[in-house]
């Protein structure tokens, strides 16, 4: 009897989980399906679920704006900002995890609190600073701002991973004659590889999807895929099929990256939560 109840429960939960997952995935699925419809089909009511599988939207999108250029910009900005972030965050998280002071906790909380501030609050000063430094519509400028924006999250994540590494091992390494940089390179980093990898993945995804700063600080030269999509909600009106094709092209790379690294990502995000 108990077994029957638990099997029923299991089924109920499974169906519930599928419904939730489909609800979450539906907008993405609909976007992808719409990308293969004609403009007429896209706005038809009642909606056509199965498209005609036309590729004309993709051809037109590529003709109108250079997808590859935007794609390249997105790669440079997301990977660059992630690497820049790690360069600062690894030593920062190391010192907070292994040589904490009385204020470490406060600093961590303060860093996190900056993420709670609406970005628009600092748009004007940042814009003016970028203007005077000639960083507007510049790949380096965008890389820098995205690195700064995601730094608190990256420091927090690395801090959590580093806290899991037994201090004894690092002390043993010091006793074995390793100076600081050797300790970090030979022992800390190899032991933190899973954590660093998932932090990198998450940060690449965050940076890839970031739209506020990429739209406000770029025009043409440094515009990444977010600007590419935005350009299709154009003054001529909304062209759903083309917009969907552009969106599909923009999210495809990161969707694939997330798909193939989902085990790593889930492990990374739940690291330390469950022993």
């Amino acid at each position, binding site marked *: 009897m108990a077994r029957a109840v638990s099997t029923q429960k299991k089924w109920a939960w499974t169906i519930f989980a599928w419904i939730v997952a489909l609800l979450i995935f539906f907008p993405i699925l609909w976007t992808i399906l719409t990308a293969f419809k004609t403009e007429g089909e896209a706005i038809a009511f009642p909606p056509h679920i199965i498209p005609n599988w036309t590729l004309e939207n993709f051809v037109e999108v590529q003709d109108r704006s250079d997808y590859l250029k935007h794609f390249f910009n997105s790669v440079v900005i997301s990977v660059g900002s992630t690497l820049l972030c790690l360069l600062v965050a690894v030593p920062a998280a190391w010192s907070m995890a292994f040589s904490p002071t009385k204020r470490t906790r406060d600093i961590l909380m303060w860093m996190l609190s900056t993420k709670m501030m609406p970005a628009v609050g600092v748009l004007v000063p940042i814009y003016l600073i970028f203007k005077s430094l000639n960083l507007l519509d510049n790949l380096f400028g965008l890389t820098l701002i995205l690195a700064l924006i995601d730094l608190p999250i990256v420091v927090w994540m690395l801090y959590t991973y580093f806290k899991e590494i037994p201090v004894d091992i690092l*002390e*043993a390494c010091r*006793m074995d*004659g390793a100076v600081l940089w050797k300790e970090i390179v030979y022992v800390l980093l190899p032991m933190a590889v899973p954590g660093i990898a998932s932090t990198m993945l998450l940060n690449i995804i965050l940076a890839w999807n970031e739209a506020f700063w990429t739209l406000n600080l770029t025009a043409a030269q440094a515009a990444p895929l977010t600007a590419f999509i935005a350009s299709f909600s154009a003054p001529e009106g909304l062209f759903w099929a083309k917009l969907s094709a552009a969106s599909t092209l923009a999210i495809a790379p990161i969707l694939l990256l997330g798909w193939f690294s989902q085990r790593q990502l889930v492990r990374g995000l739940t690291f330390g939560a469950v022993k």
Partner: protein
Amino acid sequence: MGSIALENVTKSFGNHTVIPPINLSIDDGSFVVFVGPSGCGKSTLLRLIAGLEDTTSGVIRIDGEDMTDTIPAKRQLSMVFQSYALYPHMSVYNNIAFPLKMANVDKSIIDQKVRAAAQTLNLTDYLDRRPRQLSGGQRQRVAIGRAIVRQPKAFLFDEPLSNLDAALRVNMRLEISELHQQLKTTMIYVTHDQVEAMTMADKIVVLNAGKIEQYGTPMELYRSPANRFVAGFIGSPKMNFIDGAEAAKFGAHSIGIRPEHMAISTGQGNWQGRVQVAEHLGSDTFIHVSVDGLGLITVRTEGEEPVKPGDMVWLTPDPAHIYRFDKAGVALTTH
């Protein structure tokens, strides 16, 4: 090559003083054990010598050289940790080779030394394994291998056997003692187990609340404890203490009698009591006797003693081995 001296070394965490001014001199090649109850500061003292903690004041000399502000990596000391602290991402070979790699030793020499250390410690068959594939005893051997491979000035052991089971602990104890005889390098060994201290040490430092209560050879500590704390800590089972009128008869505030210095008989003696528990170990018998006015007294007899709980017995202390202590617990001359 490996003498260590502490001169007025202190350690405080904020306002809390863990180590009050300490002076200690450890001879080159000796095996010194720091022993004391949990929280007495013995591990902190070891970490100060290692450089893993900064001293608040005072000077630490290694081989006569002031090393107080030198980083651990440059002190040329090796340390074995209670948790083994092996590098989980490296093979046994690379774990043992690590200190040599850090010292930029030539690859062929590293190979030679790692294999020699592995042979000494019976690890040759495990060199390709990862630490997680080893048993507790093997892991501890790897940790020791990593320590001996680079011929340090001194070895520091921080409760290295605490995580092992009793039988393995006795084996490893012997192995470490043999290793010391073989290498003749200074060893400082921290433990809370007084049996380890007594069996392994050339000299023992008994610590209590960060203070050195006594520093001497195991037999000095056993025969002439400086105070009540040392008397109670060294020896197993623990020394019996008697206060009040009985102690006053011996001209002391309290007296101490080791269980092995107390005779038991059913006929006559100084104090009569009832046997509460008798522990028969085969080679010895530990008898716990409740004596009115004195409390529970432990007696140790050789071989089998035919007593059982509830028996009335008489106890007689050996007058040559009665330790007398004043009100502050300081030993008076042996009675």
